[in-house]
């Protein structure tokens, strides 16, 4: 389908009463909707000339039905003009800027000429400055009167109320040229049009009534409001015709004004909101547009789509990272349009002929008519079937789809996968693609979209495919990366001393699709490094210190220095950082996305196999300190307690050293916090010593697979100081956190230090204190998500139009230059951060060799 028409621009303007009458298809005169036979009343608010919402009826204007008639506007003639509440501020500005008698702008001719030259002047400011000086009109010398606005719609001239008629006459007399200077476009927005004489009645389709199960009709809020306006309008008319006293007329007039005001905006300040019979405030025009659930953000900026599916996700490490497992039930439901050409007619015919799974659901003829494929329609379809047709067949393996997980915080929250139809009821996802989606499998659901044309498919395939997103534009490092067990697998696979027999090696290599067995390097056996090296491209050369180096000297541990030379792993054990940041990124940049994908797919298969056979688990024993270390821990806690006591004594004697800028009390708190954090560090050393490097929990923490040393400390040794607002606990009772302590006890236990570990258990007071800290972090998380969400919305809104232009400058939609060269160097963050060359050291070594 070619784009037939493109909207070039949208002009905003005010409706003049004449225009309203011209466009109106009906003058609504009856303040009612349906008659007793539930047929729309002629001249009523549901008049058939304003469109239809009842099935079976036809629009009297265009002859269309519910589906085809877009609706037409009608109008109400207001007997007396009424001020449009949303424009009252603008009206006030105009009244204040013009003369009450000659209606000219309150500026001298020379000032007028000067302002006419200025294009972008802030007129409100200019007028305020210029017209303040004089108390009479510069043109006709009339004394100026004071104009006031009593919100929302009442105007006062020298403290006498102005009727809307008076306002309207004033506005109508202002010459066009003066309005232009004020910044109005008189051709599109004459100010007197802001005082309504004819009111647009929106089409019926804008305010459809709903039929309840009981058969009762329930009218839309707008219809209710329009009924109110018309009733009072008619009463006003009757009273005027009957020659009622001015007072009564003005009262009714004001009532019409109230109804019109709430019709436009039911949240106008200083006015009680109009309510439904049930007491719920009505949702009128302004409310329909405004805010998150308003027309703009809910329906216009965010659109609903077809051809989408949503279900729970579950892991499947056996599919490729660029695949997604789609449950059979979903594949049956979703369809893909396939254009029939001379080259695929036969394939397409098969889909039409099929009664079972991959079958065509619909056929679209060249004339655009859509026919459902049924056994009876089949022959008729096939009679003329050929190139030019389009078939809609069920989703199949290899189809291109988009996969998404909310919140879609960055572009890699939506990526392109290819379909793999599977049994079961969940979407299957390779765990390696979890990080970009920030997904886990504790019940997360994800959405799938099937694209419906070639352009979309090609673009998705070329720009959004998972392997193109391996490197995140945020920091230029891998985001599609192996985690947890994969990392452990990589570590054990490449650790010194990991060897495989010939048969094991064959198994592993076969898994990777490699049929050539290298020469064994460990006697008759094969080292893990050698086997993994089989996957590396030849040019891969790396020399990095592993994460383990932080605590160990590379000289002591042969695994700590990772060296890969010309695609052969020489030394070191892989951990998360070297795997994802060095190897993966280099392959991506040197060999391209497709090769990087293959590397991830194959290497993760091998790693998973290794870790499955190796076995990796933790038990209570992994978090138990040896007796000797437990004793040391108790000593540590004792000495910490003593230290705190000593500080408190110093504080009480006032001998404690004051930190600059802090009160004595604050100095004490600071000191104690220092002592407790020192104690925690010391406990960390103890835990590390006691558990040792062969402890799986410690290994996983060290190589970045899962957990941290802090987790181990809290489980094995002690939970440590609890804090609220980065201070020791003090809230609760007067002078203490719980009644179990003495008032004003400043000691460790009384102020939230938890001596127990998660393994040994917490005492009741410790448990309470721990919960206090836990509460804070929960509250913080909730607040943080809300605040950062709003910040991101603002950021996106402010920056969304910035695009790199042909000359690599960054410009917004108007073409205004923001940066002369993107990022100062014109480099893509994805591509800029790489070392594509071998590290200097290795090069030098090669040179020497």
């Amino acid at each position, binding site marked *: 389908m070619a784009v037939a028409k493109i909207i070039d621009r*949208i002009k905003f303007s005010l409706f003049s009463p004449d225009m309203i009458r011209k466009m109106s298809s009906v003058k609504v005169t009856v303040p009612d909707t349906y008659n007793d036979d539930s047929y729309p009343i002629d001249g009523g608010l549901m008049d058939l000339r304003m469109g239809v919402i009842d099935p079976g009826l036809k629009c009297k204007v265009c002859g269309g039905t519910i589906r085809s008639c877009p609706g037409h506007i009608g109008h109400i003639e207001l007997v007396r003009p009424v001020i449009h509440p949303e424009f009252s501020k603008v009206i006030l500005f105009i009244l204040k800027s013009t003369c009450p008698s000659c209606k000219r702008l309150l500026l001298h001719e020379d000032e007028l000429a000067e302002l006419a030259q200025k294009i972008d002047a802030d007129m409100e400011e200019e007028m305020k400055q210029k017209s303040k000086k004089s108390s009479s009109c510069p043109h006709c010398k009339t004394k100026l009167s004071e104009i006031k606005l009593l919100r929302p719609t009442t105007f006062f001239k020298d403290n006498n109320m102005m009727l809307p008629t008076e306002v309207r006459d004033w506005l109508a007399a202002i010459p066009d040229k003066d309005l232009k200077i004020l910044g109005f476009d008189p051709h599109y927005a004459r100010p007197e049009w802001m005082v309504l004489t004819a009111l647009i009645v929106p089409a019926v389709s804008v305010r459809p009534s709903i039929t309840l199960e009981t058969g009762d009709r329930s009218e839309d809020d707008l219809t209710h409001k329009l009924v109110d306006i018309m009733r009072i309008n008619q009463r006003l008319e009757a009273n005027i015709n009957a020659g009622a006293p001015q007072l009564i007329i003005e009262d009714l007039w004001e009532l019409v004004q109230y109804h019109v005001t709430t019709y436009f905006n039911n949240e106008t300040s200083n006015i009680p909101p109009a309510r439904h019979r049930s007491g719920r405030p009505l949702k009128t025009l302004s409310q329909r547009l405004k805010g998150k659930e308003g027309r703009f953000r809910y329906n216009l900026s965010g659109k609903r789509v077809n051809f989408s599916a949503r279900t729970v996700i579950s892991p499947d490490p056996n599919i490729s990272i660029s695949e997604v497992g789609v449950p059979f039930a979903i594949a049956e439901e979703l369809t893909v349009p396939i254009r029939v050409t001379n080259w695929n007619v036969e394939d397409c015919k098969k889909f039409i002929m099929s009664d079972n799974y991959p079958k065509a659901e619909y056929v679209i003829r060249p004339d655009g008519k859509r026919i459902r494929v049924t056994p009876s329609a089949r022959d008729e379809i096939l009679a003329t079937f050929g190139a030019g047709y389009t078939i809609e067949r069920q989703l199949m393996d290899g189809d291109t789809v988009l996969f998404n997980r909310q919140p879609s915080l960055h572009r890699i929250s939506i990526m392109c996968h290819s379909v793999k139809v599977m049994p079961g009821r969940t979407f299957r996802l390779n765990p390696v693609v979890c990080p970009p989606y920030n997904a886990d499998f504790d019940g997360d659901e994800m959405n799938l979209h099937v694209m419906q044309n070639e352009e979309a498919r090609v673009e998705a395939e070329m720009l959004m495919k998972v392997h193109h997103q391996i490197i995140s534009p*945020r920091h230029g490092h891998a985001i599609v990366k192996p985690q947890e067990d994969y990392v452990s697998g990589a570590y054990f696979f490449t650790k010194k001393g990991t060897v495989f027999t010939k048969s094991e090696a064959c198994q592993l290599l076969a898994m990777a699709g490699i049929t050539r067995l290298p020469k064994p390097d460990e006697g008759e056996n094969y080292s893990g490094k050698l086997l993994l090296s089989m996957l590396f491209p030849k040019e891969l050369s790396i020399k990095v210190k592993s994460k383990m180096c932080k605590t160990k000297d590379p000289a002591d541990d042969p695994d700590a220095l990772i060296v890969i030379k010309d695609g052969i792993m020489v030394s070191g054990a892989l951990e998360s950082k070297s795997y994802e940041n060095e190897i993966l990124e280099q392959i991506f940049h040197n060999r391209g996305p497709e090769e990087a994908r293959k590397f991830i797919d194959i290497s993760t298969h091998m790693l998973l196999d290794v870790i499955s056979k190796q076995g990796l688990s933790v038990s209570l024993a992994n978090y138990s300190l040896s007796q000797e270390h437990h004793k040391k821990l108790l000593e540590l806690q004792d000495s910490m307690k003593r230290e705190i006591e000593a500080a408190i004594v110093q504080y009480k004697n006032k001998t404690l050293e004051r930190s600059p*800028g802090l009160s004595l009390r604050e100095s004490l708190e600071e000191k104690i916090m220092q002592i407790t954090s020192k104690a925690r560090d010391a406990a960390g050393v103890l835990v590390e010593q006691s558990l040792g490097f062969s402890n799986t929990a410690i290994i996983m923490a060290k190589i970045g697979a899962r957990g941290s040393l802090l987790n181990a400390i809290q489980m094995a040794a002690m939970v440590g100081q609890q804090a609220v607002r980065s201070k020791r606990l003090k809230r609760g009772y007067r002078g203490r956190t719980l009644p179990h302590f003495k008032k004003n006890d400043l000691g460790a236990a009384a102020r939230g230090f938890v001596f127990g570990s998660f393994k040994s258990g917490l005492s009741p007071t410790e448990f309470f204190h721990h919960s206090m800290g836990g509460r804070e972090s929960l509250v913080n998380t909730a607040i*943080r998500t809300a605040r950062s969400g709003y910040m991101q919305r*603002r*950021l996106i809104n402010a920056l969304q139009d910035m*695009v790199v232009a042909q000359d690599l400058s960054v410009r917004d939609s108007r073409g205004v230059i923001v940066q002369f060269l993107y990022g100062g160097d014109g480099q893509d963050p994805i591509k800029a951060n790489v070392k594509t060359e071998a590290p200097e050291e290795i090069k030098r070594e090669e040179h020497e060799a």
Partner: protein
Amino acid sequence: MVSKKTQIDVGEAVGIVAAQSIGEPGTQMTMRTFHYAGVAEQVPTGLPRLIELVDARKEPKKPIMDIYLKGEAAESYEKAKEVAKAIECTTLDKVAYVEEDFDEKKILITLEKSEMDAEGVSESDIQKRIKGLSGLHVEIKEGTITAKPSSTSLRNIRRMTNKLRQLHLKGVERISRTIVVKGKDGKYFIRTSGSNLAGVLKNPHVDGSRVYTNDVQEICRVFGVEAARNALVREIKQVLDMQNLNVDIRHCMLLADSMTMDGAIKSIGRHGLSGEKAGVLARAAFEETVKHLINAAVRGEEDRLIGVTENIIVGQTVPVGTGLVKLKMKLD
């Protein structure tokens, strides 16, 4: 010269990428405040600080300066301390007890000799400064000063009292606390609570080329937008780095550049960048929907549909990335 191999793609929606790259880690940031020992407590870091920067607030919640010194002062702690003392602001209520007497319609100022000596202000200085104020009738006695406001309304007395208390006697205004810190290079610098670039730069011992404040607006006033832009980049990057969030500096630069592109710092949000966008629909879809529609109607405004939001609203191709290409295939 731009390396072609790593060059950014033409048409890339770098704005959105930057916004996402800074916004996405927002959820991982802490709300904690940072403690600069001795100077100011609770300096916002993480998300609150980032929001503060992006909002382009008039003044940060906790203005902080790092004042680098030159010459002798950078080498000696004593000398640096002297400079710090000279910079630190002394107000009247630091050296005197100021109280109002509503019955007698006067303000009593009792000087505290010891504090005055410690701060290095003389009595005659104070007298001179108070005499210099308008709207006060001053009587001077040994150790006390009585001031009678010319307007004796209670409100005015209270106002004058507060004014007197904050009366600036010595040092640089708004610098409430100073501390001398030894830098990584072994040289001393002064960290202050409160920021006043123009005032600090007057001190001859201050290395004007390196003075730093976290008040971006002030940098803009004193050094101009270019400097403010650099400060913004630095501050944003620093906030992210402190949280161990790795974000490419280009994203921070784009954000800072768009905030400063027309010569003043504009905030991200309805009062700044988003409020001045070209498209009516884009503004209406962001915030204050009705206001923008009303104003557009009155002015007879036209939306040329050149932005992203506008085109999404009308259901057309967005002018970004592949959507920029106007090429069409000839069908025949």
